[in-house]
């Protein structure tokens, strides 16, 4: 979309970061997948729940785990490890699902464990380096943050599984950008 600007300026205003306008700090829920730590804006997180067995959906890529019943609504569960090419997660009782809300839609992201809640000010977010094609596309990432000695990858949940959920995602994105 706007390649030059997202690379050029540090803390450039990305759509989802605008959400809480007047404070410079935003809270991120961070979680781990393997040795990596990821964060999503706390405002998009609806709840965090333990793993419940999913029902598989036919003929979809491996990172679509299936669907679960979230108090009467049916939400898809995505496997973050598989999404980033790390193979399907072998789930145990300790795995958790981060339920996020994007626009009108609710979905779950399967991760290994919840790690922290961080208050991050905008100027602490560094833009991700350009990645090789075929790897995770940098547009799913809203930036990088260094917490003590760890690097936290901040994810753009609206885009992360956008392709998977049909065309309205585009309008969702636009709504967020505006």
């Amino acid at each position: 979309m706007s390649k030059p600007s997202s690379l050029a300026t540090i803390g450039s205003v990305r759509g989802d970061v605008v959400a809480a306008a007047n404070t410079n700090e935003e809270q991120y829920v961070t979680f781990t997948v393997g040795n990596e730590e990821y964060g999503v804006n706390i405002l998009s997180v609806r709840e965090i729940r333990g793993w419940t067995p999913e029902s598989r959906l036919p003929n979809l890529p491996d990172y679509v785990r299936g669907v679960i019943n979230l108090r009467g609504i049916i939400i898809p569960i995505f496997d973050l490890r598989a999404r980033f090419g790390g193979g399907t997660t072998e789930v145990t009782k300790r795995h958790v699902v981060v339920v996020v809300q994007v626009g009108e839609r609710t979905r779950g992201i399967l991760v290994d464990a919840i790690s922290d809640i961080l208050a991050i000010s905008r100027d602490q977010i560094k833009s991700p380096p350009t990645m090789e094609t075929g790897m995770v596309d940098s547009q799913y990432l809203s930036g990088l943050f260094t917490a003590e000695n760890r690097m936290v990858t901040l994810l753009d949940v609206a885009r992360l599984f956008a392709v998977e959920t049909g065309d309205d995602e585009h309008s969702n994105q636009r709504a967020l950008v505006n």
Partner: protein
Amino acid sequence: MEDLQQFKQTYFDESGEFLAVAEAGLLRLAPGNVDLDEVNAIFRAVHSIKGGGGAFGFSELVAFAHEFETVMDGVRSCTIAVTDALVNTLIRANDILAQLLAHARDGTKPELGFADPVVVALRHHAQTAADAVQESPAPSTPVTNLPETVSRVVTVRFQPKADLLMTGNDPTFMLRALTHLGAAEIECDVGGLPTLAHLEPELLYLQWLVTLTTDASLVDIQDVFEFVSDDSLVEITEHSADGASPTASPSETDEAAGGAVTPNSPGGLAPATRTEATVATVAGAASPSQLALYEASAPALAAGDSKAAAGKSSTAGDGAHLNLGGHTIRVDLDKIDRLVNMVGEMVITQAMVAEHVRDLPPGQFQELLEGLEQLAQHTRELRESVMSIRAQPVSSVFSRMPRLVRELSSETGKDVVLITAGENTEVDKTVVENLVDPLTHMIRNSIDHGLEKPDDREAVGKPRTGTVHLSAQHRSGRIVIEVADDGRGIDRPKVLQTAIKRGLVQPGINLSDEEIDNLIFVPGFSTADKISNISGRGVGMDVVRRNVSNLGGRIGVYSAPGQGSRFVLSLPLTLAVLDGMVISVGLERFVLPLTNIVESLRPKATDLHGLVNRCDVMMARGEYVRLVYLHQLFGIPDAIVDATKGLVVLVETEDGGRLGLVVDEVLGQQQVVIKSLESNYRRLDGVAAATILGDGRVALILDVAGLQEMSQHARSPASRSVADAAIQLPAL
């Protein structure tokens, strides 16, 4: 601002109901069949739409409603004769009114002059009637008001009750409003004033006599006093334009007025019913003694109407909302849907609890078990009551059909009578909404193809007028709707011939009568000799069948040559719940809609036949049925691969074809609550929706037509990987 918006919404809701009332009444209106109550109801409906429209400033709407109302007024005072032409004009006027309402609601401008032809027609009717009256004023006939454009002299006696001021009304408002209608001479009668010693400063002792030269209608003048009609006596007396005639003698007027109307009569009409002000009209210089009671019937009609329109507030008057009668309330559909969802959840939760309790040691938890049993009962009842909130009588669909029949009858030149039965049969709102199209098609088909021309009917000894029966009834948990005609029936040789010509049937094949009849549902089939406006484009009955099967229903046809045909439509009572069969494949469970299932069986190895080295067809009841392996189609691991070890569920697709679904096991029949997969995810091939089973797990509801399609374009591994690659492309 928001409040006004809310009132507007109420106005549009009510106007919709009024339009329906008016249309229903107009359709029953026919020469020689004039029911005054009906006519009054129509007048009242149009008047209410006009009144409310005025309050919101929809001037175009009001202007048109006024023309409409004028003619209706003539009809109810019997000065305009009811003819077919008149009824047609009025029905068109009702449509125009509906369109104007839609424009007002959407804030759009109607096309300039689109209502003009109807306005002209309305004026024509009003004018001829007025002319006729002037030529021969029949002594016993009440006379209508004069054409609107003529200026008249009207005297208005306004006699407020002494406590008018207490209700927050100010007589000067009304007087000022009168001066806006035309040139007014206002005389104040101070005769009622007591001496100063007895004067109560908060009481009103004055009366007014206003002589008004105006071209406004009497209704407009009455409207000025709308809010005080209960608290005052208003007499409006009209003189002809030349002003030669004196006012009717007071005694006469009083008599007429007194007899007809007593404002604030005990137990009188509540504010919502607009009590018409007393109106007496002198019908012109020639016959002042024949005092016609213009709208003398109005109060009586208002009373009758308020009964008919029980629960609906009438005009845009204040306080109208207070008197809703308490029998019905308007509820946002979303709220009911949420309630339905929650009850669905409760049913699932209850099933879940019941499953766990079954594992408890018996005998120890007797009270818990009893409580649970009661809970189950209550849940069931709750679910039924909630579903009944959404239930609507099919009459809302049936009531549209007379109009259709009327139009078709004049288009085709066939005389048709529509007889309906079971209009009060209730079914879920979503089903009712989806009934309109299939029913329209079926009735069109019956009239266009089924019924003969009057002459042809006579030739075979049938009455000239054809009959179409439309009926609805509940039968074993479904609603069954029948459309039957007494026409010529299905012309089987012709149907067969056409089907062969179109390549739908191989020549030389022997088909039973029933099979031939069902050919009319095959896509692209039509027997009409020439393509008519109505049907015959070959998009009729196959579309009906598809729509119906999308709703989980079935349609069948029974025909007797020369005697007519009968279409039978069977639909589930609700689209929120589905009767399904739970099946398993590998570790996954799926739900198959019961309507699709013919039977399930375990084939013997000898029944299976390989085509190109694969078990592709099965012999079932003398027919070869193609097998579809669900585990293959959906890529499910650990499933039973050998059909002789699993089960084959024979399913019927919408085009009547059969398919054998190979599954591991059939777990049982169950009612399931239909849940959307699309609201949080997206549509998937072969999947109609999802549901939640008793253990809280999600199961997909299979779409048989989709499965059939998938199996026909069985994707090779190569094409699948291409599809996956496409999915992984970035969102840009």
